[in-house]
């Protein structure tokens, strides 16, 4: 089987210690930026080799986009989040993906939270967006990447809100800085087994790709509005 995948990478620095970040992580919902998160459950959890393994099930929804309202079946999208927390190395890795509709668009997101030398916490967020929809895969992935970038800001804003509330005394003052490091969209068909994290610099390429993608995708979206509306409306 052949699928195409796009990757995107962002880095966020939280001005809180790694300990604070991981404690707040389990309490990050609800927050003012997370009104779309409906439910949150831990469905597996264990300590193995001194590390904490967790699997959580989240369901999320979003206001119906205008153009999709007619078709939109507002069923919450289910999301599974696996995580491994190593308290000795001070790393926390989360792996998140949507359940269902994965042939249209599958978003795998990996975030690694690690301690920095200055005591703050670096979150490196990578997304692998793939679609098996023949002929429209590229368009769908381009939308997925835009969505990913927009949501990243909201997600870290919401997380910072929780951090501020739980730990009023941050290291540097409770702000955070984010920059999109790379965006890449290898247009070729990549065998599913050999998808690599080949990120290249130059986010401007994405603009052109997005424009043409938007055009080509339009007809497709009209006919698959309900399913797609759900996917694109999922926030993190």
């Amino acid at each position, binding site marked *: 089987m052949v699928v195409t995948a796009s990757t995107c990478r962002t880095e966020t620095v939280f001005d809180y210690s790694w*300990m604070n970040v*991981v*404690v707040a992580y*389990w*309490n990050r*919902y*609800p927050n003012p930026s997370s009104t779309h*998160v*409906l*439910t*949150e*459950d*831990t*469905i*597996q*959890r*264990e*300590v*193995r080799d*001194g590390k*904490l*393994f967790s*699997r959580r*099930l989240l*369901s999320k929804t979003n206001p119906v986009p205008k153009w999709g309202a007619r078709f939109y079946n507002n069923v919450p999208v*289910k999301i*599974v989040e*696996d995580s491994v927390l190593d*308290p000795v190395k001070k790393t926390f890795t989360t*792996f998140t*993906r949507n*359940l*269902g509709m*994965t042939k249209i668009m599958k978003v795998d997101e990996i975030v690694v939270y690690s301690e920095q030398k200055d005591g703050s916490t670096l979150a490196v967020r990578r997304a692998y967006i793939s679609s098996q929809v023949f002929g429209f895969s590229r368009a769908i992935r381009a939308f997925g990447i835009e969505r990913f970038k927009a949501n990243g800001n909201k997600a870290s804003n919401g997380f910072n809100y929780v951090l501020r509330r739980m730990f009023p005394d941050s290291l540097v003052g409770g702000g955070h800085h984010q920059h999109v490091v790379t965006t890449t969209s290898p247009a070729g068909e990549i065998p599913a087994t050999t998808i690599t994290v080949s990120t290249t610099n130059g986010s401007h390429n994405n603009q052109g790709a997005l424009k043409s993608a938007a055009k080509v995708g339009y007809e497709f979206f009209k006919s698959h509005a309900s399913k797609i509306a759900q996917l694109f409306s999922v926030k993190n």
Partner: protein
Amino acid sequence: MSSVGEDCNELKQQYDACFNSWFSERFLKGQTDDSACAPIFRVYQECVKRSIKEKKIDLQEIDPIFETGLEEDNAKKSGAKQQPAGKS
């Protein structure tokens, strides 16, 4: 935050409270024994699993990211109460 099962909310709250204090006061301080919240977790899990089943949420398609253990461990823990294996 709500649970996926409306009737599991109270159990979820209790478990989350237990987990949060265990996590910050024990686990992060080097104590890896996780038995403190095991009883409430078990009850909460029964509720959530039932709800997931009722809502027909298909967890089968998830790739097993935890290469070893989890499923087996869970099977061991729940022992005789283990549900018959899936339809597959």
